[in-house]
């Protein structure tokens, strides 16, 4: 028996946002639709809506990340929430305080939402299982497991450019093994019914049984991106060379780096995506990154709107649950 989905309340509303696995197609589409609404907020003179006024959002970053942290911070602020950002990597855990201690301390400050980034898979689930009722947890990346807001912003970007998922061929290139971004993208693409999903990497950067993730496996970049509508490049961590997973950045770029020439087999209107930050000359060359088919900067703007939508949905669910409790 699969365990109940802790992300949803008993009516199927989003309470926590931990992984895209186990979320219905309807719910994913609802998130994408809501994001359309939030996209307009950035065009207002006052880039703020009062939805989460009086709510406190704590960004718990156990692993440093400037970009994700900033976009979550902006998203929360644009919802009028009070935002608290804690870089815990450097502080309490090194003093022997457990993750639960940290959590309990913040709960005592009446935080309404935790946005969590952690180096270990399952960390967001763990926190969601232990927060007080009424507190939502948003996963901002846990180990290799999941980065659901990134996955959704990528789906949002794809939908804006390409529409119907069922006709699309999507190629994901790079370090699938260590990539929470790839896992979230794959889960979303499976649920949204993408036509064909491909993963392209050397064997050392693929997990065991990669086909079980719902994708066709390629080891040749040109073959893998042939007739693709969307080409997603993943970030390559430098540590991978030390772990004997790759011989060198040079050879990686020779084989798996995206150039205009190698992109030639893709559809002429294919878009190129990357979760950032890009290692130019490793994952792709600058010509592609800054070229007409790149939608990388758009991904960043969309990221804020997606995060606003998800935060507003979760806080909204908690509000409704609180209301139900009050009536009981």
């Amino acid at each position, binding site marked *: 028996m*699969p*365990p109940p989905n*802790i992300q949803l309340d008993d009516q199927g509303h989003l309470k926590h946002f931990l992984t895209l*696995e186990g979320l219905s197609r309807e719910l994913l589409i609802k998130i994408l639709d809501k994001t359309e609404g939030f996209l307009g907020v950035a065009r207002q003179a006052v880039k703020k809506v009062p939805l989460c006024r009086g709510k406190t959002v704590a960004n718990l970053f156990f692993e440093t990340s400037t970009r994700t942290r900033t976009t979550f911070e902006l998203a929360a602020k644009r919802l009028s929430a009070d935002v608290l950002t804690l870089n815990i990597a450097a502080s309490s855990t090194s003093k022997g305080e*457990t*993750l*639960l201690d940290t959590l309990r301390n913040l709960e005592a400050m009446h935080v309404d939402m935790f946005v969590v980034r*952690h180096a*270990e*898979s*399952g*960390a967001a*689930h*763990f926190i969601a299982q*232990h927060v007080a009722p009424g507190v939502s947890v948003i996963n901002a990346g*846990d*180990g*290799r*497991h*999941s980065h659901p807001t990134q996955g959704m912003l990528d789906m949002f970007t794809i939908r804006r450019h390409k529409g119907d998922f069922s006709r699309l061929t999507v190629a994901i290139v790079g370090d699938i093994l260590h990539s*929470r971004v790839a*896992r979230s993208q794959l889960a979303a693409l499976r649920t949204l019914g993408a036509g064909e999903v491909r993963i392209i990497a050397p064997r050392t950067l693929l*997990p*065991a*049984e*990669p086909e*079980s*993730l719902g994708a066709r496996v390629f080891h040749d970049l040109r073959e893998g991106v042939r007739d693709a509508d969307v080409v997603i490049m993943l970030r390559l961590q430098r540590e991978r060379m030390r772990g004997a997973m790759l011989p060198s950045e040079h050879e990686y770029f020779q084989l798996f780096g995206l150039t205009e020439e190698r992109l030639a087999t893709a559809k002429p209107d294919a878009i190129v995506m990357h979760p950032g930050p890009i290692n130019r000359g490793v994952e792709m060359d600058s010509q592609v990154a800054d070229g007409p088919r790149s939608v990388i900067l758009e991904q960043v703007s969309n990221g804020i709107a997606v995060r606003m939508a998800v935060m507003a949905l979760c806080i909204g669910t908690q509000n409704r649950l609180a209301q139900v409790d009050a009536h009981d």
Partner: protein
Amino acid sequence: MTETTLGTPAGPAPGLAPSIALGNLPSLPPGIASGEVAGRLSIRHGRLIDPANGIDALLDLHIADGKVLAVGEAPAGFAPDRVLDATGQVVCPGFIDLCARLREPGQEHKGTIASETAAAAAGGITSLCCPPDTAPIIDTPAVAQLITRTAKQAGKARVVPAGALTHGLAGEQLSEMATLRQAGCAVMCQAERPIINTQVLRRAMEYAATFGLTVIMRPENPFLRDNGCAHEGRISARLGLPGIPEAAETVALARDLEVAKQTGARVHFRALSCARSLEKLAAAQARGIAVSADVSAHQLILTEDDLEGFNSQCHLNPPLRTAADRDALREAVRTGLVSAVCSDHQPHEPDAKLAPFPSTAPGMAALETLLPLLLRLVAAGVLDLPTAIARVTSGPAAILGLPLGNLAPGQAADLCVFDPEAKWRVGPKTWLSQGRNTPFWGERFKGRVTWTLLGGQIVHERRR
């Protein structure tokens, strides 16, 4: 009734000089504190299952002076002090657990010899072997004696300390095996620590073989294991958990088997987890290498799918593998290729499991679920009851080389009477182990121990 299959009998490889006899060796680790007098008991109307003697019949059992006096009719004039009515129950040798961590000395916040042997008694276990990775490590006679002495005081189960195979378990220098043997260590073991230098492994096995000592190995290649915490497969791919490939086990197993062949050491492999290991084991036994193996009971029940939702109670080492592996392990237990089933009891304090999955401590508290898990396999038609009992009595006794797990007259009256139909729920009211870290917490089980006898003394009696 069916003849139960025992594992390959352990013994020195043919063609080797007989091992040097060590004097002053206690034949049995002490169970009961001296000074207590065991009474005269009759256990009546039970189904007696004694695999070592090929018995499965409704037979009474009579006990005097801590030993089995007679099976069947009571000797003329025998007047028991107490009669236990075992109608509808199974009477069998007390279980022997080849791997149970008691956490003492060194980690008493997880468990103590007193708390864990009480849990063992409640689970029908009368003898257990504790691995040497205590703190301090069991590489000196003092630590071994401390453990046996404390266990004797607690008086709930016989505790057989496994001596460290290498000094400090560091895998570099041999331990004083002969001395440890004299201090009560029946076997030598490297626990979960690797011996990276194969030359050291070879010397350790050769030295152990000199004294006819069985070496227990948990085959695991540390480089292939790396920082893994789950079976490398479909589930770890999806959950993004660092994987432990089967090769982490099979590569180490292949090396250890070859070194066993080279040295003629008697080697027992702990906790095999995958089908490919079983192939290697079967081939080695066919070649006449003196090796045996066990599995942990939960490996016969759970699979990688139980990790869903990052259930840290299923963070185990070796990891839970695929359903196909589980089925192969079940078959190997049935045929006797794997001749023992262990609890692999690892109690933890609650905090050890309260962290993101990879950071949690592996292992589960399992003494009290050993019998019900085996009975699940019996109910599922995987094993017949005598075979299931053989794997936790005569099988492990042969591996330890101790005269245990046998209810012939004259043998120590270590036995277990259980009601195979009694239903119970794992919870605070039924659980004795200090560690509550079990994925079965809250679950309903069938089969519960009514009495456990150690040297003829009742050390556990179920309250009704």
